[in-house]
């Protein structure tokens, strides 16, 4: 009897199965938690000991004008912060291109390391850093008072002025170097012959950047933009969580933070918070498909 051979398809399946397993465990298995949105869940009871309430919590989110107004405020903040994030997403490209033009290798390495480091500092530490610099008795205020520039401390952290912009700047500071890494990698992939040909045609450094490097980076850029639009509603929680206080709450509370504040941050409102995050997931998936469609129409490329 000839030895039975494993089919190539099955081999490929075996290769991919660990990853499918991970995807299932990390992305699909947690979805069973959606069940909480349909119960009157109250810890420490088990879910089976709680009452089934159907769509009550979904209705409650839209129960009256004030509830809707609260939700709209949160959505406004979410869109504003994500929008600003999209607006500044060109910065890493510029940074990568200019960094690439630096000739001295040690200086280039230094700048790159120096700008990538903030990405590895957690937001909690970033905040304590911000606090010691900008609080009422922080370094900046103390310095300004001692120099006689101001009489009373300026409230950098406890005010609602330009909250969106401030948050965006912190984000840029933290993420600029890190986001540029992807573009730096893409730059090395650009065919050197193109540059040589352009130089022969008499292009200067800026011409090279504009006509060769930049177009070479666009595919990477567009994929990243697509992904960030799909993540439009999930602009994270930790940054806003550490910076939030009574004074800037009006403009800092994004969707993820709102979900956290009414569930874990408050007392036992897990069910409505789950309902809200289900809605968020549905909108995010819709957004992804819309953007994907747009991309197909405009550029002929899709990611999904």
């Amino acid at each position, binding site marked *: 009897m000839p030895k039975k051979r494993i089919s190539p398809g099955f081999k490929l399946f075996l290769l991919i199965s660990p990853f499918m397993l991970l995807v299932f*465990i990390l992305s699909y298995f947690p979805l069973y938690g959606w069940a909480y949105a349909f119960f009157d869940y109250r810890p420490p009871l088990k879910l089976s*000991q709680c009452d089934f309430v159907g769509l009550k919590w979904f209705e409650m989110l839209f129960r009256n004008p*004030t509830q809707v107004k609260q939700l709209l405020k949160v959505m406004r903040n979410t869109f504003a912060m994500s929008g600003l994030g999209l607006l500044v997403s060109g910065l890493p490209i510029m940074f990568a291109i200019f960094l690439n033009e630096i000739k001295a290798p040690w200086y280039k390495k230094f700048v790159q390391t120096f700008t990538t480091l903030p990405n590895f500092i957690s937001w909690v530490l970033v905040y304590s850093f911000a606090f010691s610099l900008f609080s009422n008795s922080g370094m900046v205020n103390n310095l300004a008072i001692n120099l006689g520039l101001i009489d009373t401390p300026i409230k950098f*952290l406890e005010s609602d002025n330009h909250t969106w912009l401030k948050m965006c700047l912190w984000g840029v500071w933290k993420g600029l170097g890190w986001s540029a890494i992807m573009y730096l990698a893409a730059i090395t992939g650009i065919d050197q012959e193109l540059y040589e040909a352009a130089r022969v045609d008499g292009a200067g450094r800026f011409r090279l950047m504009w006509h060769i490097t930049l177009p070479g980076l666009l595919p990477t850029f567009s994929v990243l933009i697509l992904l960030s639009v799909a993540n439009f509603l999930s602009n994270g929680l930790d940054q806003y969580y550490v910076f939030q206080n009574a004074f800037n709450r009006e403009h800092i509370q994004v969707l993820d933070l709102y979900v956290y504040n009414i569930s874990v941050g408050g007392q*036992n409102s897990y069910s409505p918070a789950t309902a809200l995050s289900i809605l968020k997931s549905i909108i995010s998936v819709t957004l992804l498909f819309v953007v994907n469609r747009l991309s197909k129409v405009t550029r002929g490329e899709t990611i999904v």
Partner: protein
Amino acid sequence: MKKNGLRVLSLVLVLTMILGLGACGSQPASNPTPTPSNSSNTTPSDTSTPADKAYDKFITIDMFNSQANYQGIQSGWFGKVIKDRFNMEINIIAPNVAGGGDTLFQTRSAAGFLGDIVTLGAENGRLADTVKAGLLMDITDMVVKSQYLSKYPQATDMLKNLIGSDRIYAIPSQVSSLSPLTPSEGNDLTYGPYLRWDYYMALGAPRIRTLEDLLPILKEMQDKYPTSDSGKKAYAISLFKDWDGNMMCLAKQPACMYGYDEIGFALVSADGKTVQSIIDSDSEYIRSLRFFYEANQLGILDPDSPTQNWDTLAAKYADGAVHWSPWPWQGQIYNTVEHKAEGKGFMIAPMEDMKIFSYGCNPTGNKYCIAVGSKAQDPQRMVDFIDWLYSPEGVMMSCAQTTGSCGPEGLTWEMKDGRPVLTEFGVKAFSGDQTLMMPESWGGGTYKDGISQLNYQAVSTMEINPLNNAPYNYSLWPSYLESNTTPLDKSWKEFMKAETTLDYLSQHNAYTVAPGNSYIPEAAPAEIDTLRNQCREIIKANSWKMVFAANDAEFEALLKDMQDTVKGLGYDEVFAFDVKIAENTRKAREEAIANAK
């Protein structure tokens, strides 16, 4: 064949996954020593009394302690006392330290193991739910046979009713045999307008008719004494936000000086007859916000208030950088032996219209209770330990940290001429001496580091200790009062013409007692909880903004915005529920008075 193989394999994969995850879920939370299989058997096989019981095996127990402000192994001299008596050490799990509010309780209960010993608040259906979820052990038989716990049937019955069971699952704290109209706090009540007494005297002790009269006095105080002992800028008033719950915690405190305490969004008077909604423009809460707002306008409110935590603030008090405190213990961080000897320190001010809220003694105990976890190791030893906490020795030793109990005999106090007197060691220990070393026989280390971190007051420290016929709380002893002769005490006593704070308040009819009673609020419907969460976020945020508002118009606008928003969200429904609880509380308080007569 190929297809089938594929199917079988995917099935196997899915199954392994589910089993693997299931296994993750069913693991109990970390348990230092493996539990013997006695958790299902709750009836002790051994009926001997704790005294002649040998605890052969050394164990480390987890204590889920909702009140402790320390996390980790109880060390030092109190740890040694426990080790000697019960051959175990206690690993304290403290949500207060871990942070994140209720999260720790929720995750641990989801894992099915809160701790070998659990202390928690019984209110809002919490105890009943915990029993229903199978997290606590039925300890009826062991309690009935115990030496001290069995003396409080009234208290355990109260919790039985609350759970709706005829079995004992938990024992209330602060049980008392005194009248429900006796203040449970000792000589200083929980609240009061405490000032830097030396500064107040230096200003010529101006008359304080009401709360708002404090503002110009505090302003003058700050102008005259603008720096702390270490030369930093001092502020008359400094606040913090750590304890904000349904409202801004610090803005509730002045309301308590006028005889109100909070029940949800309601401020309820001690007799239960007056109920205010905190967001009403004429409520005591808004009055306090206005008070702090005015203070900020005068420049006497610390701008760090919204961001600093209590530790930072405590350091400021210790440095003399704050001149006012709504609680005695907070201001009196400054009242060290040295400062008092120099005549410096915080004492209560004669605010003429105050009517300080006091919690009456409670025969059925406080809502905080202690229980044994359903998966506890050696349940009998756990009950023996809890029984010890309720014994005279246990109360003296375990309550010395926060409630002023007198500590172990022979160490901090001794009998002299038939009455208890603090020893020299005791005087140093209770004045907050950080470096006081314990004698070798107690295992060495400093007194402070080895103090009991349990923060659990088994019986009221107003109770009479059968070992010395004096209250557990040393500050009530005649010998202690006679020894209060520092320049600070003398100055205060002479001016106020009273021996103690409580003495002064009694003379001027300036406190009001909420009779201790057995009522514990039931759980609110989940919808009310959710609305409350939303409302209180708005209330807290706007309260802080109002305090720091730029001008009157902004203050009023923020107030209006707060009222409109929370009403729109459904504040009235939540408040109606609170009013119902307040009504039940009033009835229970009246019943308690009737029973006491």
